[in-house]
């Protein structure tokens, strides 16, 4: 049994067990979304008419009062009748939407690139349209467990997806699969693209300076974003900080050196939190957000991009605001802990 959700002048058919968000994105109808697991609240919408089942919507994200007031989390709620919904931020359709798709990818390579860190290259049977900075979901074989990994690709790299994955102690996806049993040639299901961590459309991109701060494998989406921004405007100031514990955690250094050579206004700053940098190395000690404060006097007119553990993202938001970056120009992608 499927029900129809109407948003604005668009109608989308939603399966019985299908979240509204999933149905909308598959139909190519944009709806704000970020974590897709009920924790961030980005996809909150108003059910103007009709019944929904809130599913596993957490009480923290969707309070009793909000439910009472007709709000729902699109990523958790399923329809129980034909419904009319509206997004809270206003109009649906902020730019180009790439439909959510399920594809079976082939593992092309799975190499260790830094301490406890793999680069996974997945070859797709057909191109996948996405915005650089978005992520895909992998399903751990033999389970229902889904894990989200950001794409390090630019939009034209649409046949081979590049993911950076750090091992999690006891992790079902990492220790028991990607870092152990996954082999080149394996066929694995991939769902994507997802998320709202991407640049404005080219015609509304003001070409302003950008600062990107990645913690650990949080570097991945920033690579796609930085390369896309630089190709749009090669003279653009782009400041990329990579925060890691020690030298052994750094990776893609050749790529960073190449970008630095090609784009004079691009700066890469590796920052080590748990090791003293060697004499005369380019590495800095401490936390990237503190270095940003030292390096940039005013971030008025800049955009900021943060991907990493929640404390790093929160420190970054504070640092950006301290340098007077407009809050609406601050973009964040948190590593949210797996909920299952």
């Amino acid at each position, binding site marked *: 049994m499927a029900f129809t959700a109407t948003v604005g002048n668009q109608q989308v058919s939603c399966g019985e067990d299908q979240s509204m968000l999933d149905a909308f994105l598959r139909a190519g109808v944009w709806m704000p979304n970020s974590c897709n697991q009920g924790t961030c609240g980005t996809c909150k919408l108003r059910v103007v008419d009709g019944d929904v089942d809130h599913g596993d919507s957490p009480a923290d994200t969707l309070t009793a009062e909000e439910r009472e007031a007709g709000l729902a989390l699109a990523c958790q709620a399923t329809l129980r009748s034909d419904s009319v919904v509206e997004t809270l931020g206003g109009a649906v359709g902020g730019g180009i939407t790439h439909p959510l798709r399920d594809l079976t990818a082939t593992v092309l390579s799975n190499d260790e690139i830094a301490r406890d860190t793999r680069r996974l290259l997945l070859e797709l049977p057909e191109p996948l349209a996405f915005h650089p900075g978005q992520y895909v979901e992998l399903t751990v074989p033999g389970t229902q467990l889904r894990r989200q990994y950001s794409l390090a690709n630019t939009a034209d790299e649409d046949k081979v997806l590049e993911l950076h994955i750090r091992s999690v102690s006891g992790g079902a996806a990492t220790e028991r699969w990607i870092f152990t049993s996954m082999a080149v040639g394996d066929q694995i299901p991939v769902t994507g693209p997802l998320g709202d961590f991407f640049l404005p459309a080219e015609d509304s991109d003001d070409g302003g300076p950008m600062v990107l701060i990645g913690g650990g494998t949080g570097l991945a989406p920033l690579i796609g974003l930085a390369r896309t921004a630089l190709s749009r405007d090669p003279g653009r100031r782009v400041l990329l900080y990579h925060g890691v514990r020690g030298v052994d955690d750094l990776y893609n250094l050749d790529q960073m050196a190449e970008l630095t050579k090609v784009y004079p206004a691009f700066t890469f700053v590796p920052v080590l939190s748990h090791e003293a940098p060697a004499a005369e190395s380019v590495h800095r000690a401490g936390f990237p957000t503190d270095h940003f404060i030292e390096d940039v006097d005013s971030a008025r007119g800049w955009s900021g991009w943060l991907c990493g553990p929640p404390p790093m993202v929160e420190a970054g938001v504070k640092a950006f605001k301290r340098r007077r970056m407009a809050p609406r120009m*601050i973009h964040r992608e948190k590593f949210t802990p797996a909920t299952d």
Partner: protein
Amino acid sequence: MTTTSETTTPDRAWIADITMTELERNPYQAYERLRREAPLAFVPVLGSYVASTADICREIATSPDFEAVITPAGGRTFGHPAIIGVNGDIHSDLRGMVEPQLQPVEVDRWVDDLVRPIARRYIEAFEADGHADIVTQFAEPVSVRSLGDLLGLQDVSSDKLRQWFGQLSRSFTNAAMTEDGEFANPDGFVEGDVARAEIQAAVDPLIDKWIEEPAETAISHWLHDGMPPGKTRDRQYIYPTIYVYLLGAMQEPGHGIASTLVGLFSEPEQMEEVVDDPTLIPRAVSEGMRWTSPIWSATARISKVPVTIAGVDLPANTPVILSYGSANHDTGVYDAPTRYDIKRPPLPHLAFGAGNHACAGIYYANHVMRIALEELLEAIPNLERNTSTDVEFWGWGFRGPTSLPVTWEV
């Protein structure tokens, strides 16, 4: 043995001890006790009955047994017919005169283009300083400049408009009465009279011009709209309503902007949430309006017939002041009402009044406050209250912070 009457009639003597100075400094204490012990009571210093709870304010504001009346000090300041104190055909005509420009669909058409550049201009003037007084350098100027331009008073400086609303405001709330029902401080109306004379001197030439050449200004529309060809409304007929605008509509969005910020500063986590997510600003403004209602106690109604409200018998022609600022702190409606909290259930509040005299500018004012705060928090997301001084609020009729010093890293 005590008598029965002593146990059933609470001692109300304290109400006679309430002073104007006390109310203007901080009305909340006296009103908390009024709500608890005498929610509809005659308050001698005001020479009037006062309604202090949400239920009673709403009941009187919407009752067919009451109609609008301007407070004595308000009437002395504005003259007749001010839109807030008239009824029947005159009220209908004046509402019909002001409302077309204030319809949501109409306001949506121009409010962003009107207010945003003004807010940006005032921010640009101080953003490199690292410190400012939000009340005098931002909230008040943005409020008066936006409405001033809408009315057609582009040539009147923001400082002059701020001076006028201050003079009119103090005169309007010069409410203290003697036991004989006379104004206790008649000299307090002099500055209001001075302001009115200045306003007429500035506006008369504009009216002369707009009578001949109608323009896209609110006052020009007031002269012409709904009138037969070749006729305009008499200027003396619209002046009292011009004063209503130049006081309440000029001063109060500024109060609302500043009070909302003070409230947010009192809850740093909520401040951060609002800075990070500007879509929360309307909610923050709504709570600011509840928390410190700008039009705290400036409107009144009068009974048309003998009526019993909350167990109190009122003869016909009894004025009742509606203290909406108190009603919005009614513990029967709001938990911990003295706390600013954008997370509280979004219950309706009475900051814009109720009934057929509810504020005509509610939609406009809410957008002025929203846009001002959007621009301020976008330009200075690292805004901090200068905690070396306390924020002082002042006012019983109209209430808001007297100053709000802030700092930020440049």
